[in-house]
């Protein structure tokens, strides 16, 4: 498909999702209290969207990923939170 055809097919859907993201951030920022590690990773992931990189989806996923390589001692929970809690900097 040409770039024009991709835009014709997906632009409205992507616009809708972008506005949903913006509204989510407004909602978080209106609320009382502090942000946690998830929002920190989220803001870092957003920066990937402005970079000149043709693997933006991959880079966003890497931003949220646990980068360590050793198994953890014990699984104390079953679920995932969507971002690596120990991410710093």
């Amino acid at each position, binding site marked *: *498909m040409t770039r024009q055809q991709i835009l014709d*097919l*997906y632009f409205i859907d992507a616009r809708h999702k972008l506005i949903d993201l913006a509204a989510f951030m407004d909602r978080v920022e209106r609320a009382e209290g502090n942000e946690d590690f998830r929002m920190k990773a989220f803001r870092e992931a957003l920066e990937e969207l402005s970079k000149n990189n043709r693997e933006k*989806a991959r880079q966003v*996923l*890497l931003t949220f990923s646990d980068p360590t*390589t050793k198994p953890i001692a014990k699984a104390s929970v*079953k679920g*995932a939170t969507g971002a690596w809690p120990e991410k710093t900097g």
Partner: protein
Amino acid sequence: MVSRVTDDYVRMATAGCQAICEPAFWAGFDRSSVHGFYDYFCQLTEHEPKRAAKFGLPHFCWLCINPKESEDLKLADDVLAIIPKFLNRPNVLGIGEIGLNKNSRNEMKVLEKHVDLAAKHDQLILVHTPHLEDKLKGTRLIVDLIKSDKRIKPERVIIDHVEEHTVKLVLDTGMWAGMTLYPESKCSPARAIDMVEVYGDQRIWMNSACDWGVSDPLAVPKTALEMQRRGHSAAAIDKLIYQNPLKFLSQCPKFKIQRPWQPT
């Protein structure tokens, strides 16, 4: 599809689905003993094939203790001990979906035992990779563990739930990559097609998540429609949603299906 209503079988048959391949997975709660798994394996190998057959759908399954219940090593050993009793049943394709959930040491031990079981009984392997932030690390640990067992042929292993950051890692090992489609939170039809366009259509397939969460048994046919909208040919769509799964699954001699409209 133990977690789905019969209407889902009707919808899948109506949409052109040719067979169901159901992995053993978490029930949404931890089973209290090996007896719960014995009954579950009977359900997968006796009851579900009959339920699917009413709608002309051949039903196949995979057996294991899933990673979410692998932290309890005693329970895992008990379940691993009963699996061989079921492997000769006519709809069992292999061992799965094994893998990791939180990437713990015990999960790794149980994964290793499942891989050993598959090697000893010459079974195909279906692997679950962890979700969200745990996927990258878990996928690396899984492929390294499987690659280290030289009895396992990579082309007889499918690593499921790949996303943009793990698909190349899997394909580079010679194993198959599965893209699991979800209506929310994970891989969407559009992203799955993106990955095929970037990485090609060799050793890759899509599957519809049909579990206890929000999921859509028609995700694969809907993705086929999306491919059509993008201009993919009928042959390209058929390769991805039919020929590729057929090629992998036919490595198990018990997997035999026939498209009803094809002449014999």
